[in-house]
């Protein structure tokens, strides 16, 4: 048994496998399938200060080795989260991070302030990369100035670990990563979904009610790996790799590219037990290659 523990700033993770926001609900939906406490951590749904109904439906389109979604941050708001959902989550013996989003900097701040009060929440993941909301969301994540503004604003009110989740829909991810770090990010997670679109040729209509949506799944893994690698060269904070991870081999690739931990997204829908299989697979890989710990491979791509 290799040492799978890893550290993201002040977060101690028992293993490097987390779940991606929006793909694991609040964890409780998986209680039937697995013991959530066995995971390195979970990132719960995108949370905003005000309740959001999200977008109209259809909200999903399957594409080659991927899917588009246009959920649009449907959630009951930070106060409901704190009062009704949070108490249930305290049963888990693992890191719980809240994915925080907003339409204005003030909304980000108010939301982070509420989460800051919750003892069992180990950190927040600042979502400045959601492609599915009209205002805010991704708009914050595509320019250095706005990243710096929103990140430093939240930093001033949030005391625990703050991860910033980057958008892949940009020209130079390295520059944006630097802006997030200079704004005060303790770590970076990437990638969020690629902006895409699906059309039904027979009806001649867009498949999604919102026309465009976010692409996730194996299709985006090559882009995600490349961006993790670029960001790892650009900054010195821990990175959480996300994008199309379906098995342990995919996860290993992200570690080699420079990620200290990974998040599993779309794969949870297909196999709700996939995270446990990935943890096992990482352990086997390390043993087979005679590595004593996950840190032996983080960023160890042989050039």
């Amino acid at each position: 048994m290799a040492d799978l523990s890893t550290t993201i700033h002040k977060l101690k993770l028992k293993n490097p496998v987390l779940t991606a926001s929006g793909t694991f609900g609040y964890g409780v939906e998986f209680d039937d399938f697995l013991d959530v406490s066995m995971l390195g951590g979970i990132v719960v749904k995108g949370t905003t200060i005000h309740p959001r109904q999200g977008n109209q439906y259809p909200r999903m389109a399957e594409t080659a080795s991927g899917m588009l979604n246009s959920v649009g941050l449907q959630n009951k708001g930070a106060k409901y989260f704190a009062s009704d959902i949070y108490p249930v989550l305290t049963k888990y013996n693992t890191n719980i991070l809240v994915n925080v989003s907003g339409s204005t900097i003030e909304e980000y701040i108010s939301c982070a302030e509420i989460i800051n009060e919750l003892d069992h929440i180990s950190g927040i993941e600042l979502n400045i990369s959601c492609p599915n909301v009209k205002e805010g969301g991704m708009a914050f994540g595509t320019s250095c100035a706005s990243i710096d503004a929103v990140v430093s604003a939240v930093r001033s009110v949030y005391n625990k670990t703050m991860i910033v989740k980057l958008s892949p829909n940009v020209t130079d991810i390295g520059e944006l990563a630097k802006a997030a770090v200079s704004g005060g990010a303790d770590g970076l997670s990437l990638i969020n979904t690629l902006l895409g679109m699906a059309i039904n040729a027979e009806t001649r209509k867009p498949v999604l009610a919102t026309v465009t949506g976010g692409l996730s799944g194996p299709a985006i893994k090559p882009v995600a790996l490349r961006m993790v690698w670029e960001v790892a060269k650009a900054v010195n904070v821990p990175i959480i790799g996300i994008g199309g991870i379906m098995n342990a081999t995919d996860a290993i690739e992200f570690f080699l590219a420079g990620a200290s931990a990974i998040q599993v997204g779309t794969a949870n829908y297909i196999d709700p037990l996939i995270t446990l299989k990935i943890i096992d697979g990482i352990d086997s890989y390390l043993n087979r290659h005679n590595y004593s710990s996950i840190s032996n491979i983080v960023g160890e791509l042989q050039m």
Partner: protein
Amino acid sequence: MRKTVRNLKVISNLRLNDNHHLIQLQSSEPLETIFPGQFANLLVENSAIVLLRRPFSIYSVDYKENTVSFFIKIIGEGTRVLANSPVGNFISTMFPLGNSFTIPNEREKILVVGGGSGVASLMILSQALCDNSNEVSILIGARSSTDIVSLDQFSRYGEVFTTTEDGSSGLKGYVTDHPLLGAQIGRFSRIYTCGPEPMMKAVAQRANLNSIVCEVSLENTMACGFGVCLCCITDTTQGHKCVCTDGPVFNINDLKWQI
């Protein structure tokens, strides 16, 4: 009603007609109780196209043999692969998912209306209603007689009526042209329906007009099937609800249908 993901073995595959198959899967362990209207999410392997699972209503259950059956209409790649699953193969099955139709405790007169692959959830429903000593009438609508399958099974649980658009079986026309949804509708205390949305809306309208309790089973595009992706929502009087967990069965009073 714990949800599980299991590899179930295909123990029979019955080709009902050109594009409908009935596949029966067996579990090596005992099954959880399954309620009428619930569905399963099946994994499609060996396909270059399909990534996500595909949802199918549970057509029938046998707790003695630990089998579940699915009635599959071929419409794309996923259903094509699943409908053609060879006997002996294993299919990864996530179930039971979703809520269920209300099964009254007292003896009621209930009309069950189905169309297309929507009939899939109505077999186990009719059985449950009949087992709970309700009086069941079953009305099946189709384009043509060749699209109507497994009628004889339905007749075990109630009287069966049909309408076809071409008149090749039963009454010519739509289900809503049938006297059961017309002059005779008053004799039912409940109408349950599953089928194409326009059909369900027409049925719902009749029920509504006559103040009859009406439950419909919705479809939607689903990524997960167990309430995490929030892709499968429908508009309700209480806001957006997930078809996969809050549904697939909804009382029409809770929906925002224009009926």
